[in-house]
């Protein structure tokens, strides 16, 4: 949703006046705040990622240096976690898109004639936001626990071997990521589908296109802005998430993602340079992926 709003720069057609002094006064506090607490921290992160241990200090004391080997070490040690993070995030994003599209289509197009139903259904989509996402994830952990109803049922129909688990597996982590980000996918999809002109669909049908052809050649291209925002709003946080993959939640040590390594290195091991290097790698890969993706899908006016 946020991404679509930034893409729609065309709304700025109110003949802006040229009093740049007033603009400066309006912009200064907020922009200064972001420079101080968003941009400077990113620079701190880059500086930290090159630091080396202080020979005369305690554990956790580092001095400024240009130790680029930090990156080699961090990536060398954690590359499986980096790959896993992007792999899980990719699968979760595709699943969330497939699950969310029909929901968004129903609320945005089919329920259009019933505004009250439409807004109540939307409330149900955002309802999970009103309860802590940690608790929601823990609820799934209980439901999928070894003594829980799901595992018992799956074992009774022999889908799961008798010593099998659901929690702590790649399945449960991807399940949790998909579940947690479905609202982030559904809302931007809804926002574009809600404005979909259904006469285009009728025109397609009149021209003897099958429902599937109409969907593929008309509906999907027209809802592309929503698909792009939804997939970005899901993929980016999912790739950096470390709650679902944490062993106290849906994961285990064999499902750890790069976010878990950043948390452990920063908050437990006090290996700040390694955590910083991993953060920079994560951010760089995401920016490259987002850049290529946005270019390929032809929505370059994102910013």
């Amino acid at each position: 949703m946020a991404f679509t709003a930034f893409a729609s720069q065309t709304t700025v057609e109110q003949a802006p006046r040229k009093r740049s002094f007033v603009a400066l006064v309006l912009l200064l506090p907020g922009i200064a705040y972001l420079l101080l607490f968003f941009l400077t921290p990113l620079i701190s992160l880059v500086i930290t990622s090159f630091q080396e241990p202080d020979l005369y200090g305690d554990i956790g004391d580092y001095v400024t240096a240009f130790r680029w080997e930090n990156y080699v070490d961090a990536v060398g040690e954690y590359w499986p976690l980096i790959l896993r993070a992007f792999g899980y995030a990719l699968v979760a994003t595709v699943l969330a898109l497939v699950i969310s599209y029909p929901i968004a289509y129903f609320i945005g197009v089919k329920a259009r004639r019933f505004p009250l139903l439409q807004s109540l259904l939307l409330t149900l989509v955002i309802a999970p936001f009103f309860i802590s996402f940690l608790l929601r994830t823990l609820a799934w952990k209980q439901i999928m626990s070894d003594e829980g109803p799901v595992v018992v049922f799956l074992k009774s129909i022999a889908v799961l071997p008798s010593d099998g688990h659901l929690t702590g597996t790649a399945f449960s982590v991807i399940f949790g990521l998909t579940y947690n980000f479905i609202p982030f996918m559904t809302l931007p999809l809804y926002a574009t589908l809600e404005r979909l002109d259904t006469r285009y669909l009728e025109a397609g049908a009149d021209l003897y296109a099958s429902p599937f052809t109409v969907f593929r050649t008309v509906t999907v291209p027209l809802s592309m802005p929503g698909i792009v925002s939804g997939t970005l709003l899901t993929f980016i946080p999912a790739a950096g998430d470390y709650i679902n993959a944490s062993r106290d939640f849906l994961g285990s040590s064999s499902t750890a993602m790069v976010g878990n390594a950043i948390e452990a290195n920063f908050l437990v091991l006090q290996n700040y340079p390694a955590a910083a290097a991993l953060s920079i790698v994560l951010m760089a890969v995401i920016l490259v992926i987002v850049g290529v993706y946005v270019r390929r899908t032809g929505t370059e006016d994102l910013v």
Partner: protein
Amino acid sequence: MRRRTKGLGLWIYTFIALAFLLIPIVYTFVFSFNDSGKLNIAWQGFTLEKWATVCTVQGLCEAFGNSILVGLTSTVLATALGTLIAIALVRYRFKARSAISLLLFLPMATPEVVLGAGLAAQFLTVGVEKGLGTIILAHTMFCISFVVVTVKARVASLDPALEEAGRDLYGSPGQVFWRITFPLLVPGIAAAALLSFALSFDDFIITNFNSGAVDTFPKFIYIAAARGIPAQVNVIASAVFLLAIVLVVVAQVSRAARAKRSSAS
């Protein structure tokens, strides 16, 4: 006939999918009535006791209070800063516009773990002690962009003729802003403030990096998850959920009723 059954399939799918989204919420609510010991895992029988003894769990109500305090403070700060930026972006032409748009877009495109680690690295470098203050600074930062996006849409939909009329009637710039522009922006600002509060209240990842020894409600849950969540956590979460959902539904029903009345007249 085929058309009708196809539409029905979508109905059924949507309701099943939404029911699926609600399963953990129902679970959390039901287990707030569980007559459990320290661990709230297996169902032990119904009790209202946990609702009456919320604050007997050590640190829980303090953490919840911290979350409310952080949420309110960072909402006020982020809403003020973000609203000013939104007005400037829509109403004025200035250099460095694309650089500023990028600066507003990037915090939303950066994973929380990177935002959290970056701020923590900065506080470490400068030697700031982490606590409530650093949590508020962090939450304000990530809320600003969302406020800008929300309020900007509202500013862009304002009719500039209304403000022109105010100026024609010799209103000072201050009068025009407070008597005309601001009241018209209130729905957008309110939506942005609600969004900020929700984002702040539920944030865990950035908080975890910048809170030091201070607990918020999500951080309390994270720490408790290692040894088992007391049912009182479910009580607080359920109460907050019910309050929020009632507010939203009442707002929607009254808006729908108003829309019906104005279209009827």
